[in-house]
């Protein structure tokens, strides 16, 4: 397993994060340690084992399709850009 500076750059770009050089190095080394630790699992032979996607296999309880009154605007009024009607965000140019 290798974690290069490029790996960290790619991840930072995907996460829209900026870090300084020292933090960049620390993240790279941490991530390598984490992956090395997790790699221990590859010692187990998993051929023919169905991947486990969740701890429960009972299935998700489903909700009946009923609409209720919900918070509405109150759910977004905490956003810094709430105008009382819309949420103002930095301009997105398509």
């Amino acid at each position, binding site marked *: 397993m290798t974690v290069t500076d490029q790996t960290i750059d790619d991840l930072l770009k995907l996460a829209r994060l900026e870090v300084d050089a020292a933090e960049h190095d620390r993240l790279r080394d941490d991530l390598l340690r984490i992956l090395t630790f997790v790699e221990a699992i590859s010692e187990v032979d998993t051929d023919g084992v169905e991947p486990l*996607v*969740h701890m429960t296999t009972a299935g998700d309880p489903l909700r009946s399709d009923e609409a209720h009154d919900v918070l509405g605007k109150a759910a977004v009024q905490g956003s810094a850009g709430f105008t009382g009607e*819309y949420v*103002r965000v*930095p301009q997105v140019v398509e």
Partner: protein
Amino acid sequence: MSVHHDYETVIGLECHVQLQTASKLFSPARNRYGDAPNENVDVVDAGLPGVLPVPNRRAVEFAVRLGLALGCDIHLTNVFARKHYFYPDLPKGYQISQFARPICTGGSVTIETDQGEREVRLTRIHIEEDAGKTLHRPGETASFCDYNRAGTPLLEVVSEPDLFSADEAMAYYKALREVVVHLGICDGNLQEGSMRADANVSVRKKGSGALGQRTETKNLNSIRFLGQAIEAEAHRQVVELSAGGTIKAQTRLWDADKKESRVMREKEEADDYRYFPDPDLPPVVLTAADLATIESGMSELPRARRARYQDTLGLAPEAAATLCADLALAEYFEQAAAGHKNPVSVANWILNDLSRLMGERRTDDDEGGFSAATVGIPPAAIAGLVTLIDDKVISSTIAKKVFAELAADPGLRPADIVEAKGWRVQRDEGALRALIDEIVAQNPDQVAQYKAGKDKLFAFFVGQVMKRTKGQADPADVRRLLQAALS
């Protein structure tokens, strides 16, 4: 444009079908178009910390309905996954979708082409939540988000690259729309964005088996725009390749006003959405019994219904198609024709006189479709009317008058109207013969002209007899006796 003949277009479509549920996919907020901005937003839709999504049973059922209708493999265990990207109309920073284990794979959509019917293979159908809407206002230095649509349920229907012209792509879109509307899972309202397509388009030299580099044109919300965007993109690619250029992987946006597409983003590297199973959502687990229950509640698809009307009931293709284009009209016909020995005539009455009446009585609530309540006349009355004609109790001329009576008072039975008005066909042949002799005697000029070869005058004599009998004579009897009298 001659270079175009050397190339063929290959298209795959991703169609987003908005489900007409009452509530959202993972929250109880209303799934309703046209409300005031940010009115229908729950904490789950806003992506507030600590909330848990709970899937909407009906959305899952709708996915199963579509999967059954299109012959897909339905996966009893299917898994919601997170698809990560940043955009202001996606509050959580990820969209809940399905990835490695979608609810449906395979299946096909049947399209009508110039060469007849063809099956367009499907890759998959998966359930996902929609994002909110971002408004861009001219002159503003900010954008504005409305999260009413955030979290509303969608099915994404992904086709194989099995379409070879803009016309085929439009036929596919129409066929898919017909199915989802018929299944009652989507209102099919393209103006309101209830169906949106992304078109993957590539071109290749004819005879080449390999696929060319494709581009993706996003958010095509009408059948016409879909066709125009594909034509334009295929043309652009052929021109580019013919000039020795190459096609780049791009996401493009169609500008319906300028009728051209522009680059939205270059896809130099594959999108990295970092999909993984959503830890907040255990797999959806269905049983075979669930599927059977859902299937038993499904109405017959338009294509199967059309075939049945033609093959079993003997209707002409146009009549079958017109009836099946409107579910309410088809159901009215089904009720009227149930057990009737002349479904063709029943269909004709519904498509002619009854549809004309519907046109006269249409209200704003009817939204262009047929409504049994608006016409008022019950299906059984149409059936009864046709039986009276078939049993020669009344002539077709009288039948029109009976229909007018029914239109005025839908509570009446056709047979009662005929009795009350004394409209039964006259079977007294002696009286009819005497009347015909009288008419022949009164019109010597017409008789002479007819005998001199003016055959068209026969209709004049039929008309005279029908007029004098107030339409109550059997036209077949009239013709037979007239021929005898005039020979």
